[in-house]
């Protein structure tokens, strides 16, 4: 009997509460299997020297480079600066995205006036607008942070907007009958109801901010993981490029996992599908 239990979401919190820690740990283990296989294969290819090292260095070489970078302290400088930039950019962009998403989601009028312009901005390529950013904001941190923010803005904006427009209008009717003040309407109705979508937007935004570093740090910088990658590329230091790529992947995955933990915490009230266990 118990075997079936976890496939039944209606099985309720008992199952969830009981299985959470182990299930979580087990899931973690499984997640590593695929990457480990890939890395082993990769090392094999490297060890057999099937591919030139300058093109695809083996994991072990990358590890050595990584160690050197850590030893020289260079690694932490780059990482620190990049995280700072990405964080500022993310908070600025995602914050604005949330705000505008709320305002425009809430008001049809704001949508009519603003949304089309924002949608146009969305597909303006970063690489193409860097000159403008240089013009307006110079080569300082500001322009980098703003460029990252520009990218981080849209996923949160669109997801928040759609989240709000996806809220069951029956609950809005309740809020109208109970005469919710608009700020209660936001905090007690709109935010919780569109939280699943907002968190999704945040996950996408985090990724985009982090990726935005590469372009932002092309713009006259002298430190940062993105800079490190592009600098290493300039000198064909492929192993260093890969260290950079791995840092990107690792930090990206880490932040994403954090948001998902938050998701689990905040969306406990949902009665939704948990996936088939078979």
């Amino acid at each position: 009997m118990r075997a079936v239990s976890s496939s039944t979401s209606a099985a309720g919190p008992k199952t969830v509460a009981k299985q959470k820690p182990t299930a979580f740990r087990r899931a973690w283990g499984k997640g590593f299997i695929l990457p480990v296989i890939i890395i082993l294969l990769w090392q094999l290819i490297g060890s057999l020297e099937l591919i030139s090292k300058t093109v695809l260095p083996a994991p072990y070489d990358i590890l050595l480079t990584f160690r050197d970078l850590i030893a020289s302290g260079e690694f932490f400088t780059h990482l620190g600066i990049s995280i700072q930039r990405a964080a500022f950019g993310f908070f600025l962009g995602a914050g604005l995205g949330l705000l505008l998403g709320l305002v425009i989601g809430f008001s049809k009028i704001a949508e009519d006036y603003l949304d089309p312009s924002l949608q146009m901005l969305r597909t303006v390529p970063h690489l193409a607008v860097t000159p403008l950013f240089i013009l307006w904001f110079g080569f300082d941190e500001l322009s980098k942070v703003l460029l990252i923010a520009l990218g981080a803005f849209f996923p949160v904006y669109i997801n928040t907007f759609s989240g709000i427009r996806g809220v069951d209008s029956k609950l809005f009717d309740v809020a109208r009958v109970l005469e919710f003040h608009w700020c209660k309407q936001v905090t007690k109705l709109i935010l919780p109801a569109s939280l699943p979508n907002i968190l999704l937007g945040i996950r996408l935004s985090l990724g985009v901010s982090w990726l935005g570093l590469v372009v932002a740090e092309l713009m006259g910088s002298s430190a940062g993981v993105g800079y490190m990658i592009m600098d290493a590329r300039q000198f064909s230091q492929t192993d260093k490029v890969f260290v950079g790529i791995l840092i990107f992947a690792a930090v990206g995955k880490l932040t994403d996992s954090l948001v998902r933990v938050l998701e689990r915490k905040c969306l406990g009230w949902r009665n939704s599908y948990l996936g088939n266990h078979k």
Partner: protein
Amino acid sequence: ESNGKDLKVINIGVQQSLSPLLLAKEKGWFENEFAKEGIQVKWTEFQSGPPQFEGIAAAKLDFSQVGNSPVIAGQAAGVDFKEIGLSQDGLKANGILVKKGSGIHDIKDLKGKKVAVAKGSSGFDFLYKVIDRAGLKPSDVQIIQLQPDEAAPAFDSGAIDAWSIWEPFLSLKTIKSDADILVDGEQIDRYSPGFTLVRSEFAEQHPEEVVRFLKVYDKAVKWQKTHKKEAVDAYSKIKGIDKEVVENVLNNTEPLNEPISERIIQTQQETADFQYELKAINKQIDVKEVVDNSFIKKALKGGDDE
């Protein structure tokens, strides 16, 4: 920010390559020199030439060093700058790489081959010159547009037959993997000069600072020449590349700090005309218009303010 007399900050752009500017930056010579005037120095690193013109046009950049092709593009686009010195003649800085055993021994063998090059770079200009020298037409070779870092794997994996590229890739590839230089600038007597630039408005408002800049730069150039070993060490440390490669690169790209000669100007004019012909730039330009040797002459004469 730097309009008017009260100059607070000068902005220097430095490309991600091995230039004495890097040495000076490392040693803080510019900072020391300009600190006397209460001026701060701000460094900005670039991957390539064009963004530096964007910086100059936006008045966010005062000095920089750029190669021949971007300078022509910048001038054609109407960016207001002056060439105030020759930083490199680039005779050996450009070349065409082929793989060892590729069967390409002569530039004529390039016919029908795939050659990678980054459009708008000095390698682009160089490649056309080589093709011309070989008696071929541009349509006789397959020109593939690739940025250097993308051309590298393509070259390694044999997806392209030849690669028109510059230092440090020439040294990297010849030393680190099995590549030969088919032809370099020296062999066809082709300069690929690099220039020290200043934003025109800055030069008008602060001519003495321009001279001061060139003096400090001169110090760096001389230091590199006289302290070869230390210079190799320093570059190797800053950029984290092999000393052997660095040394080779330095041998091929002797830094200069001298007035721009008629010979160089003529080469530049040829390049500009050629690019116009290719429609890479959309108007004919006179490259002399942006040459201003007055500062470098003052700087090299020395002693007028000390």
